[in-house]
């Protein structure tokens, strides 16, 4: 099960993690971009938490609202990208009864929207390189998915994305020089997945 309350917890946990890694995200974006990813993400997730619909039982509605908050509060590329991810995923999830397998279908639609929005493919050193492998393991494991599987896959993806050459966004100007440096967006996506894992774990324990 993936409840509206879990969706809210996911976003609150993400906001905390991002806030506490604000400087790291800034530094990564400074090295390969314009240095605002920490600020962008903190501002976006702060707004997302403030605007979380606390009343609804529908996780889709929660995620859709999150997408709108991110889109309107993040002035950088991560705004339309994460905005699309959450809006599309949220629109895909119907009603109050959502299984983990439904969540993975939702996120699949979300990440496909993100790829279209960014005209990006895998291995171009973006958030997509973190999210899509994780969504694949979710699709593979379905309702049996565990928090550890999520974390392991996210860690593995994070190692890979570091080695890619950037082909999209500001980092693309660095060409081969981008290899060996972490992508700011992949790093923030990692925190989103870590947060999702912690919510699943708490649910498993409950």
């Amino acid at each position, binding site marked *: 099960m993936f409840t509206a309350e879990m969706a809210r917890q996911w976003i609150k946990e993400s906001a905390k993690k991002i806030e506490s890694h604000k400087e790291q995200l800034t530094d990564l974006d400074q090295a390969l971009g*314009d240095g*605002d990813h920490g600020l*962008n993400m903190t501002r976006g997730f702060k707004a997302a938490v403030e605007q979380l619909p606390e009343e609804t039982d529908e996780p889709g509605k929660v995620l859709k609202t999150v997408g709108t908050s991110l*889109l*309107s509060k*993040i*002035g*950088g*590329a991560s*705004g*339309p*990208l994460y*905005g*699309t991810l959450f809006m599309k995923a949220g629109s895909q999830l119907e009603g109050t009864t959502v299984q983990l397998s439904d969540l993975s279908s939702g996120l699949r639609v979300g990440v496909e929207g993100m790829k279209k*929005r*960014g005209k990006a493919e895998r291995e171009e050193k973006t958030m997509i390189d973190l999210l899509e492998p994780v969504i694949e393991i979710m699709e593979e494991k379905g309702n049996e998915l565990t928090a550890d599987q999520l974390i392991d896959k996210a860690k593995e993806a994070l190692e890979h994305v570091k080695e890619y050459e950037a082909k999209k*966004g*500001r980092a693309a100007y660095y060409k081969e020089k981008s290899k060996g440096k972490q992508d700011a967006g992949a790093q923030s996506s990692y925190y989103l997945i870590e947060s999702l894992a912690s919510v699943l774990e708490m649910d498993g324990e409950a």
Partner: protein
Amino acid sequence: MVGLVLVSHSPDISKGLKKMLDEAQPKVTVLDAGGTDEGEMGTSAMKIQTAIEKADNGDGVVILVDFGSSVMNAEMAIDFIEDAHSVKIADAPFIEGAYSAVMEAGFGKSLDDVVESAVQAKDTKKVQ
């Protein structure tokens, strides 16, 4: 008459460009949609959407973008709009494309002609 929407990360850039375009073709509706909602460096899909709606006098709107999130947020804004087929993003250099576009728009040209003139601004040589 076709309207224009200017989307740059820097609000100063789109502001200055609008001023320049207004001097060249005062009768064309040009909307400055640069910067974030807070007037900082960045772009905003909502700001762009509002600008598109204001710029449309019935003959369509051409959006000029600088790069990166300008393009993505312009596309998102178009997704939010009903009559999306009358809104086009020009694959054109921001300043030079906008200048060509405002001229053609002022001549009463069609949406496609205005886009085309913006795109062709690429090929104008500045130095020999």
